[in-house]
């Protein structure tokens, strides 16, 4: 095991061990946090179960009682006495202390986000990204939480007077920590969304950006040419100075259960949604469709798949379905489609092709 793997393994082990401890005497809210942590990654499930098993085995530790407590106490006391010579004996000591804060930061990141990939580029931007099929949660230094959906990427910069996030790809749900002095702004090419303390989802689709508000209020400013604003171009990692957000006449305030669709051109459509929680069902890897076309349904599914489901021939895209699916389980969709006598579903391995059955 190399040094880096070792450090990582130690952090994972420490995290799993902490959860075993917490769940031994959970306080209100611990269960919820524990479940959220488990649902972040199979690795967390694995590490927790193994740690629980280890803890169980510790119940029979030193059954022969060969260890003598007194001698351990004596050894401890020796360690407590200050030994100035020790730093000479262990030259690594001070260096080790120096990387501790970095390790702690890594621990926080791991605790929150598993393998979310992180890099620090110019101007203090941090980038987080997920692979296809992967979802990650991470907590920002201001206490805000970002849930990153499949195949998505954000860049974050927390400054003294603003918190800026660029959604570079995909979809993210933001739970913004309340801070009136530091507006929280999310930029896409199409719009800038500004919040103080709230919960909202931003999804960069091929045809524009969709903003859905779960709690509180946000302010949306379109950026396309029709909106006549440069607002959403915003600051950018690796893009020089960039412009700052500017409020325009095109801005609109959105409340809970409202959803805005902003086109590339800059037009904005706002509608009330009864089931705004459907929008963020992705966090539980559920896909919910209410009378949506197969074209829409399959393109949602394909966000989670390395091998896309393909629709062949005319008339297939427009067929309308309603259903709740497991994003990881394309079989559930295939089974539903296979029941439709009008459709033929061909699979070979991971490749799935759906077409209209020819009479």
């Amino acid at each position, binding site marked *: *095991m190399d040094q880096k793997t*070792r450090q990582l*393994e*130690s952090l994972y*082990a*420490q995290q*799993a*061990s*902490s959860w*075993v*401890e917490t*769940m*031994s*005497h*959970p306080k209100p809210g611990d*269960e*919820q946090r*524990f*479940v959220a942590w*488990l*649902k972040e*990654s*199979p*690795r967390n*499930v*694995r590490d*927790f*179960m*193994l*740690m*629980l*098993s*280890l*803890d*169980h*085995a*510790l*119940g*029979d*530790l*030193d*059954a022969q*009682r060969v*260890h003598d*407590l007194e001698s*351990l*106490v004596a*050894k*401890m006391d020796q*360690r407590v006495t200050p030994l100035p010579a020790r730093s000479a004996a262990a030259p690594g000591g001070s260096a080790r202390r120096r990387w501790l804060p970095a390790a702690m930061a890594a621990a926080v990141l791991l605790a929150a986000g598993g393998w979310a990939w992180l890099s620090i580029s110019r101007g203090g931007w941090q980038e987080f990204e997920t692979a296809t099929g992967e979802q990650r949660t991470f907590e920002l230094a201001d206490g805000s939480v970002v849930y990153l959906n499949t195949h998505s990427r954000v860049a974050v910069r927390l400054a003294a007077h603003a918190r800026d996030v660029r959604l570079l790809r995909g979809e993210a749900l933001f739970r913004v920590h309340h801070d009136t002095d530091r507006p929280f702004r999310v930029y896409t090419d199409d719009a800038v969304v500004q919040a103080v303390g709230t919960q909202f989802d931003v999804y960069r689709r091929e045809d524009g950006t969709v903003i859905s508000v779960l709690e509180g209020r946000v302010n949306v400013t379109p950026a396309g040419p029709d909106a006549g604003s440069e607002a959403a171009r915003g600051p950018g990692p690796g893009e020089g100075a960039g412009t700052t957000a500017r409020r325009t006449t095109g801005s609109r305030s959105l409340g809970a259960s409202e959803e805005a669709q902003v086109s590339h051109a800059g037009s904005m459509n706002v509608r009330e949604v009864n089931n705004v929680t459907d929008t963020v069902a992705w966090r*539980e*890897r559920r896909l919910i469709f209410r009378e949506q076309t197969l074209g829409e349904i399959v393109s949602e599914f394909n966000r989670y798949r390395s091998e896309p489901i393909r629709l062949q021939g005319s008339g297939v895209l427009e067929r309308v379905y309603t259903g709740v699916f*497991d994003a*990881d389980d394309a079989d559930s969709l295939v089974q539903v489609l296979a029941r439709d006598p009008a459709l033929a579903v061909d699979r070979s391995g991971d490749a799935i092709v759906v077409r209209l059955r020819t009479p």
Partner: protein
Amino acid sequence: MMSSQPESASNLAGTAFREHAGELQRFLARRVAHAQDADDLAQEVFARLLRVRNADLVRNPLSYLLGIATHVVREFRQRKQHERVLFDSDLTDDLCDRSEQFEAPGMAEQLELRERLDKALKQLPPAHQLVLLLVKRDGLSYSEAAGAAGLSVHTIEKYVVEARARLRVILAETP
């Protein structure tokens, strides 16, 4: 802080685990001791956890987790029993290895794990050893252990967490 320290040995995680011991514990014990991948199990348990309604899960996360895991281990075993043994040397070796895994009489894995834990214990700093022995071997509560070791309850808890994590890493490193 002082208020609700758990009773010595009977903590919730331990109790929930004992309810589901047996197959699951044997399965996991082998993997803790040999740093073998428990990825297949974790993947399957993870996928099923995602299907449980959050409200149900939050009410009793440990029971759900361990219940699902026990179920999956049982399914793994059934699948193995129904697999044909082909005369492919690799496959046969693999099946032999697995049959040992699932059908080992009684507690072989746990016993081995305990031996390895006893050895690993000696590699911990004295304070961590002391705390583990007081809490796990002698069954003292955290506040009793704090009194015995002259440390704060908080430190005891911290050392238990750290010691367990270190043991896990040591076990993963020593074949």
